[in-house]
């Protein structure tokens, strides 16, 4: 290799690489071995010169990243990730092992961060978080695209161009997300050098071309450096800076640093940089011209450190990811001593075996054959990732994509987590925390103390958010305690205690971001994606609201909706709904926008609505009891939900409930059609929750109206009837009819008893109903008398459970009523028409006497003073 790169000049060894290319890394290593330089220059922020020595420490394990951030604003930061297979890392390792100095020659982060902040006033939307520093450095290359900075820092420009980048060709497009702002310059037609070259070579996929030509050629890449450099030169001659105008500044700086190094070390200098820059470094310009270019660049005070990185983040296309879609594969290519395909497939087989797939050595043999033949058919020199995965799918996985997804996740991307020695400078998250603590006047103290927060006050709300965010990050500085005083939603009590190991936790959490807010958001998003159960996500949503992480909410909501859609267990859904509805309410209190949340809640309720009736079939006693609890919880939640939704509109649900009972229930016998018509007639109005409530009632009516044959437990049917009655959606005589049906002789006594438990069980309210509606009491009484002696002992515990829950007063009143015994026969009471139709226990109410109190009651209730004639009974109650 020696000769080749040198061929271009007697001067320094210019090694143009593709960032994160394993082939490039091998070639760089070989080139350095072949003609050892006295200094190694690397494309990267010069601030890192001071800490590059850490890379040699035992505890330093790639992937890691250089992190530079503005000293006063940790949120403004840039990352330069380095993987074990990055050429830059290979060069650093070689240099440190041979005690050769390493220098970074790219534009200082001080400038690139400042430029990033300054330039894109409008364009860089995301800069706050990821200013995409100088991304140039490279590795980040593609990632940078994240590039909000694109416009700014320049990374954008460079990267795309860097051949290296090509690694992440996708990125150039993807960056779109954020880099979109860069669009301005993008329009000027950025040149993707690899695309141009590969097109010339007849490849449709630039990445594949690079892989075939460079990465898959083992170590023999010496000529490649020259060839690539020449190709780049030709490209640059044609396209100029190719739309990456910030490159000029960066390259000027690189040249200056290179000159400096040559003054010191002569020609024995090696430069590792993106291939795109190679021609620029060879250019003959004057130092003065370069200095001029660099004059007056904005500057900001920065700090730099090493942070651990992961393969998964390298693979990510957004944020700080490097856009390397297959870091695990590259790592393998770089580290495999020989026969990469055979070794790779053996690795895959090992993984599949661990996951209990029957994969034998014969499978591996056949997969290797298939991969190689495929490569030959596709005209590639060596089976690449695509060929091996196709072979694995066809031979080892029975053609299924499911195990392939596993292989991709575990091997192609991989779980590798980098490590950084403890001596590395502190992470910016700690600084941000310190700053926030100061501004909120919340000091970390080792002594435990209690803190009362009034969320209506700005500072207290900020403190609460900080503590909640820290909890999300696993930094348990404060633990929520039960408020002693008021239970209002605007009050929170915390128990604070700062323990030294929390600092370690903060350092660990540094992986997630540079500020408490961004780290907590990133963590919440990740948790939402990986959460297993529905309840877990619901809880997460609640915590996000508490912590004020509105940025994470969309993803959490999405994940919530997805899990709700796939969860077939109504019980799980029913458990999740109340918490969700609470969040909707709570969000209102905090002024958070909870529209999305409400939408998800309504969707969840819809699913419960559909799933509940079939789920109520064929339950045993315990199952029925649980289902009844779910039903009640959902009932309350739906009421709350519709109230919340309607808070703005004038129509209160109250009025509806109040006026409806006498009209609707009778007509609505068929639940499904009713539900539908109700919805449809109302669909014009934007009252989803209102329709929801009506449909929920219709569903309850269907449950209540079922006879025993679809084997719906009496408990459920009784409860459904009761919930309807309480809501005023069931006329009293309808209730009596249902009870009569449930208690008729055809029903098994235990079943009837459980219906009674469902209908009138559950606390004092249940008993009051019997006290006031003697018809119902009469039905129960008659049924009880008719229970045959042998069945009575079965029924007794159920009844006892039902009635013993009543207040003493209610029980006594009931007892008195029962003792009075059924009245002789026929309708009793003076008027007759106002009396209960069923045989009662005493004289019916005297409507005239009852009417006397009506005016007073109405006055007390603030109702229209003129009572309707036939409302007297009602009013009296």
């Amino acid at each position, binding site marked *: 290799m020696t000769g080749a790169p040198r061929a271009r000049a007697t001067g320094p060894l210019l090694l143009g690489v593709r960032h994160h290319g394993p082939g490039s890394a091998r070639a760089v290593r070989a080139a350095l071995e072949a003609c050892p330089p006295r200094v190694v220059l690397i494309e990267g922020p010069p601030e890192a010169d001071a800490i590059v020595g850490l890379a040699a420490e035992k505890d330093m394990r790639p992937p890691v990243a250089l992190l530079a951030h503005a000293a006063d604003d940790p949120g403004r930061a840039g990352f330069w990730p380095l993987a074990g297979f990055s050429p830059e890392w290979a060069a650093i390792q070689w240099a440190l092992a041979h005690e050769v100095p390493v220098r970074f020659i790219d534009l200082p982060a001080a400038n690139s961060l400042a430029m990033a902040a300054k330039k894109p006033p409008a364009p860089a939307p995301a800069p706050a978080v990821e200013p995409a520093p100088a991304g140039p450095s490279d590795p980040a290359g593609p990632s940078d695209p994240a590039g909000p900075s694109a416009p700014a820092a320049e990374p954008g420009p460079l990267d795309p161009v860097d051949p290296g980048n090509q690694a992440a060709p996708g990125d150039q497009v993807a960056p779109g997300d954020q880099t979109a702002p860069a669009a301005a310059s993008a329009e000027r037609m950025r040149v993707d050098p690899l695309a141009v070259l590969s097109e010339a070579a007849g490849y449709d996929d630039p990445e594949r071309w690079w892989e075939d030509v460079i990465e898959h050629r083992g170590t023999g890449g010496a000529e490649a450096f020259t060839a690539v450099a020449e190709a780049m030169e030709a490209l640059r001659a044609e396209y100029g800076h190719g739309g990456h105008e910030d490159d000029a500044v960066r390259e000027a700086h690189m040249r200056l640093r290179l000159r400096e190094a040559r003054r010191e070390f002569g020609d024995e200098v090696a430069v590792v940089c993106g291939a795109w820059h190679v021609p620029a470094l060879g250019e003959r310009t004057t130092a003065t011209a370069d200095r001029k270019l660099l004059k007056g660049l904005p500057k900001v005070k920065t700090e730099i450190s090493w942070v651990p990185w992961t393969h998964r983040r390298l693979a990510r296309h957004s944020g700080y990811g490097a856009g390397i879609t297959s870091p695990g594969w590259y790592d393998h290519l770089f580290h495999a001593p020989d026969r990469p395909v055979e070794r790779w497939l053996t690795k895959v087989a090992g993984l599949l075996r661990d996951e209990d797939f029957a994969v034998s050595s014969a499978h591996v043999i056949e997969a290797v054959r298939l991969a190689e033949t495929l490569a030959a058919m596709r005209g590639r020199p060596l089976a690449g990732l695509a060929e091996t995965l*196709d072979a694995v799918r066809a*031979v080892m996985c*029975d053609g299924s994509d499911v195990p392939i997804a596993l292989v991709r996740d575990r091997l192609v991307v991989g779980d590798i987590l980098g490590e950084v020695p403890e001596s590395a400078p502190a992470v910016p998250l700690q600084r941000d925390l310190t700053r926030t603590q100061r501004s909120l006047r919340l000091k970390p103290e080792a002594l435990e103390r209690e803190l009362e927060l009034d969320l209506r006050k700005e500072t207290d709300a900020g403190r609460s958010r900080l503590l909640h965010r820290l909890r999300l990050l696993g930094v348990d500085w404060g633990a929520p305690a039960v408020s002693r005083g008021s239970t209002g939603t605007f009050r929170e009590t915390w128990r604070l205690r700062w323990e030294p190991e929390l600092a370690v936790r903060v350092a660990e959490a540094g992986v997630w971001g540079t500020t408490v807010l961004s780290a907590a958001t990133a963590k919440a998003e990740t948790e939402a994606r990986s959460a297993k159960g529905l309840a877990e996500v619901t809880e997460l949503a609640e915590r996000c609201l508490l912590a004020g992480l509105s940025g994470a909410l969309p993803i959490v909501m999405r994940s919530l909706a997805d899990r709700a859609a796939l969860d077939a267990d109504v019980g799980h859904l029913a458990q999740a709904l109340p918490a969700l509805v609470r969040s909707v309410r709570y969000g209102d209190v905090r002024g958070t926008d909870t529209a999305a949340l409400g939408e998800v809640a309504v*969707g969840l309720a819809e699913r419960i609505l559909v799933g509940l009736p079939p789920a109520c079939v064929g339950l045993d006693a315990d199952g029925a009891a649980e289902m009844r609890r779910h039903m009640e919880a959902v009932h309350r939640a739906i009421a709350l939900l519709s109230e919340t939704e309607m808070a703005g509109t004038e129509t209160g649900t109250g009025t509806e409930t109040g006026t409806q009972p006498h009209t609707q229930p009778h007509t609505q016998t068929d639940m499904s059609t009713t539900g539908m018509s109700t919805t449809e007639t109302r669909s014009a109005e934007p009252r989803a929750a209102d329709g929801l409530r009506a449909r929920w009632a219709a569903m309850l009516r269907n449950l209540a109206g079922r006879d025993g044959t679809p084997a719906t437990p009496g408990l459920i049917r009784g409860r459904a009837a009761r919930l309807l009655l309480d809501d005023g959606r069931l006329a009293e005589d309808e209730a009596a009819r249902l009870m009569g049906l449930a208690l008729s002789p055809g029903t098994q006594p235990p079943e009837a008893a459980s219906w009674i438990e469902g209908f009138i069980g559950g606390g004092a309210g249940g008993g009051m109903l019997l006290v006031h509606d003697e018809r119902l009491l009469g039905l129960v009484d008659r049924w009880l008398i008719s229970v045959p002696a042998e069945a009575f002992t079965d029924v007794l515990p159920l009844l006892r459970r039902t009635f013993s829950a009543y207040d003493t007063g209610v029980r006594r009143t009931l007892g008195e009523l029962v003792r009075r015994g059924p009245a002789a026969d026929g309708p009793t009471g003076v008027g007759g028409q106002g009396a209960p139709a069923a045989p009662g226990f005493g004289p019916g109410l005297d409507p005239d006497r009852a009417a006397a109190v009506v005016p007073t009651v109405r006055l007390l209730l603030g109702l229209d003073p003129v009572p309707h004639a036939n409302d007297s009974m009602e009013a009296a109650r």
Partner: protein
Amino acid sequence: MTVTVPGTESTDTSGAAGAAGAAEALRPHAEDAFAAELSALAAADDRPRPARWRLSPWAVATYLLGGTLPDGTVITPKYVGPRRIVEVAVTTLATDRALLLLGVPGTAKTWVSEHLAAAVSGDSTLLVQGTAGTPEEAIRYGWNYARLLAHGPSRDALVPSPVMRAMADGMTARVEELTRVPADVQDTLITILSEKTLPIPELGAEVQAVRGFNLIATANDRDRGVNELSSALRRRFNTVILPLPATPEDEVDIVSRRVAQIGRSLELPELPEGVEEIRRVVTVFRELRDGVTGDGRTKLKSPSGTLSTAEAISVVTGGLALAAHFGDGVLRSGDVAAGILGAVVRDPAADRVIWQEYLETVVREREGWKDFYRACREVTA
């Protein structure tokens, strides 16, 4: 001793039938229907060919996927789908591993296998149709009992199976619906595929496969009550799963075209309107099948039915018949609603919930789907 199988002798009946039928055949074999393309490809093909292959693997892939030859001949695409799948399938045949095509009904498994055999061996007729009653003789060999009784066991009394003939001649054999074949019969393939020989113990002889022999099997991975392949047999196959159409546009296109063909053969009146409904049927099928709405924003549960393109075609055809004979001649929501319900709700309990959820959470809200929602509610209730 090796027996040479008298291939011509046993094929002469089918050969005669083939000759007579070529012109009249309701459906000609692939190698006849596309003879021109195959010979143009063979002429243009300068790449290395495996032993006894009519074309190079590259040319076989081109034959299936379509393309234009240097001389301007246009090769029509036989299979519309990912290139990767065809490449893996062809490569598998070239590596002498057997190929197993899996997929739900209606994904062109048989079609692909026929064309592969036609392109590789120039003969797609060496076919064993798998059924629950397929005997071992269909895969190995049978006997001409008159000769067997008259002359005793001899190779003249042997009736070779298509697989045996393919082995002897180095051709591609096909087995349709392999998973319907009883397990013990399936396993006769193991020796054939691993040792590449077929012993004939009655004669103390064997047939050794000649280079170029290979086997393509198809199977349906969605059916219940089939005979799963033993792992020993499975290991002899490379498996390729044929996917459902990738985009809604493709699928609407396939459905409309097939529906038009079927409608013509049933002599249904032409319907001017109805593309909207077809699109709707395809959308419903795709969404339920994929478990996610078309915009990718809402996940759904998938019912137990397969909901293949073929079923979408039959729903639309049924709807057309309804509209033509009982309706106003325009395909409307009501005409397809019942068909959709029947296709989706296979398991009365679980699938019904899934369907209702889908109706309530997706269809109800969707712009312009009100009549469809109403029609579905009507038949579902």
